[in-house]
């Protein structure tokens, strides 16, 4: 069932939902961009329609809402451990289809990856419902269509934001309040973008060989990538983390264990005890990421990890474009296959 709401009525609806949910959406953080006088868009809690930033893509993905950048897993005292309580108020997140699909990849990694379910991810994930923002135009760097992630159907509600009114489709009946039942009904099925400006062709998974690995393409990235890690921190599907033990007493018996986001492009990611580092060159880091996003993950789960949100492209200070990298790789693989 669909409902058509004026901006004012939508605000009342949000207000009613806020009794039950904390609502997160892309928010313009004034003056918080890295350059002076610039803003950044990241996910934050909202109160009203005006707080939602729809004109531009969010710089950081919604990942941090369900997978905190830094999370205390437990406190320890001698042999006793205790996991901290979290805020259990349910959460509603406004996400675009690519990100909703991206969260599906995180679910795979944390919930459906072998036998163990990640307790910390799961307990937060259970609190979350999704309001999908209809996205038919996309942005300059998006390539969700090529990645099969332009369409998402596992939303609890879909929202179309027009200039003068907002149309919602509610799948999860618990999201219907009297603000909706009093509103005009409408027939509304969200549409999905059918073509991006950027298109990629993923090289066939099995055709990527050792030769592709040793190709000079990666050398180019060694000379360009500065290993800043922005492509990881902004990515909806990067899920790697590292552990930190914080000792709170001199005898090290009282402390806290945290997990913190990590990223394959960040210096020190593969540092091992004794100072060994598997992937020293930045091109090798790029290769690792590329393979994970469009090759290895597929071998394990039968779907690619990357959803084509294009954020890695948006945030790279060296103008390294991941979509270009995929297409270059594809050309190389085709070339190699032809000459076999």
């Amino acid at each position, binding site marked *: 069932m669909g409902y058509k709401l004026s901006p004012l009525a939508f605000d009342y609806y949000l207000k009613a939902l806020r009794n039950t949910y904390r609502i997160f959406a892309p928010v313009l953080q004034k003056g918080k961009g890295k350059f002076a006088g610039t803003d950044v868009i990241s996910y934050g809690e909202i109160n009203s329609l005006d707080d939602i930033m729809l004109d531009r893509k969010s710089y950081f993905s919604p990942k941090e809402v369900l997978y905190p950048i830094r999370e205390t897993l437990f406190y320890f005292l001698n042999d006793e451990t205790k996991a901290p309580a979290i805020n259990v108020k349910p959460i509603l997140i406004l996400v675009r289809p690519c990100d909703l699909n991206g969260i599906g990849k995180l679910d795979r990694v944390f919930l459906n990856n072998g036998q163990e379910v990640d307790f910390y991810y799961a307990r937060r994930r259970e609190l979350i419902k999704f309001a999908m923002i209809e996205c038919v135009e996309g942005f300059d760097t998006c390539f969700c269509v090529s990645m099969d992630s332009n369409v998402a159907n596992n939303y609890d509600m879909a929202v179309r934001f027009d200039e003068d009114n907002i149309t919602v489709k509610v799948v999860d009946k618990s999201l219907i309040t009297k603000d909706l039942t009093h509103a005009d009904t409408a027939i509304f099925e969200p549409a999905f973008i059918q073509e991006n400006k950027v298109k990629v062709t993923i090289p066939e998974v099995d055709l990527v060989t050792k030769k592709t690995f040793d190709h000079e393409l990666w050398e180019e990235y060694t000379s360009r990538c500065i290993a800043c890690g922005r492509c990881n921190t902004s990515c909806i599907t990067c899920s790697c983390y590292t552990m930190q033990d914080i000792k709170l007493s001199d005898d090290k018996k009282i402390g806290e264990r945290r997990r*913190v986001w990590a990223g394959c492009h960040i210096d020190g990611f593969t540092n091992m005890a004794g100072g060994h580092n598997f992937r020293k060159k930045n091109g090798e880091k790029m290769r690792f990421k590329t393979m994970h996003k469009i090759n290895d993950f597929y071998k394990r789960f039968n779907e690619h990890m990357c959803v084509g949100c294009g954020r890695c492209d948006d945030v790279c200070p060296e103008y390294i474009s991941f979509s270009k990298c995929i297409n270059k790789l594809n050309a190389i693989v085709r070339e190699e296959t032809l000459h076999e």
Partner: protein
Amino acid sequence: MGINGKIVTKNAYRITKTRNKTALRIRVPGGYIKVKHFTLIQSIAEEYGDGTVHITTRQGFEIPHIDFDKIAQINKKIRPLIESLGLDIEVTDYGYPAAGTRNISACVGSRICPQANNDTTKIARKIERTIYPNDFHFKVAITGCPNDCIKAHMQDFGIICTTDPQYDANRCISCKACVKNCKKNVTGALEMNNFNVKRDAEKCIGCGECILKCPIGAWSRGETPYYRMVIMGRTGKKNPRIAMPFIKWSSEDVVVGVIKNTYAFVGRHIDRSLPKEHIGYIVDRVGYQVFKQEVMEGLKLNKKIQIAENIQWHGYYYKQDNQFKSI
């Protein structure tokens, strides 16, 4: 031909080495000018000069080879250029009202440069409105960050834009990018402590590099911009030296107030028996403590501000230059 050198100089024309020829200096505060003014500058250079301009070290234009008797005509024509300064005074047909206080220069600042902590153009134009016209010889420059591309350290007043970085431990992934960079390229104000970054506020110069380096926005800019002011740097034939820090973590009002107050200070102390005396030498003569007290008088100081207790200027005296022998 009889020329009152004092009057023409004040009018931004100079005495040149060619007899009967002068040169006009066009002010371009902050080095920022709309290109529509180029046609006027071009037409004056072509009609009255030799078709060339010199781009000055202070980011203005100097149109050479002008006949003194054309000054009145030219002054009428350059009205739009003077109007473009946006001054509070009434613009007339008599040209620039003063030339002592030099063009205020600035680096490109935050309109273009990623390193910048502030809009240097805007600040330059604001200071221009505050201190121009004035006959005392003041050199002021604004630079967007401590890289100091405009060479604020060579000015009487060098204003360096800074920021007070804010750390959000909940966003920090302990990647150390900020720590390593501050150590290598700045002052080493940061260190890791239990996976958190600790900033030594005494060592931090507010350059904002940590904000630029952080991949996740754990560092961000404070709401209020701050300024470091270095003073009494100079070139010249006697004792060239770089400007030294006078105030840190200052508000814009204090920085502007100090410059304004210095005009009154110079008015009180300048040696009028000399053709001209630069502020730096006046401060040397009357002493830093007197200068400090007089220019700080009546200013509403912001909470974070720090003022140098003493300043020791370095530099060298040409006359003590005794390390050379003829070969």
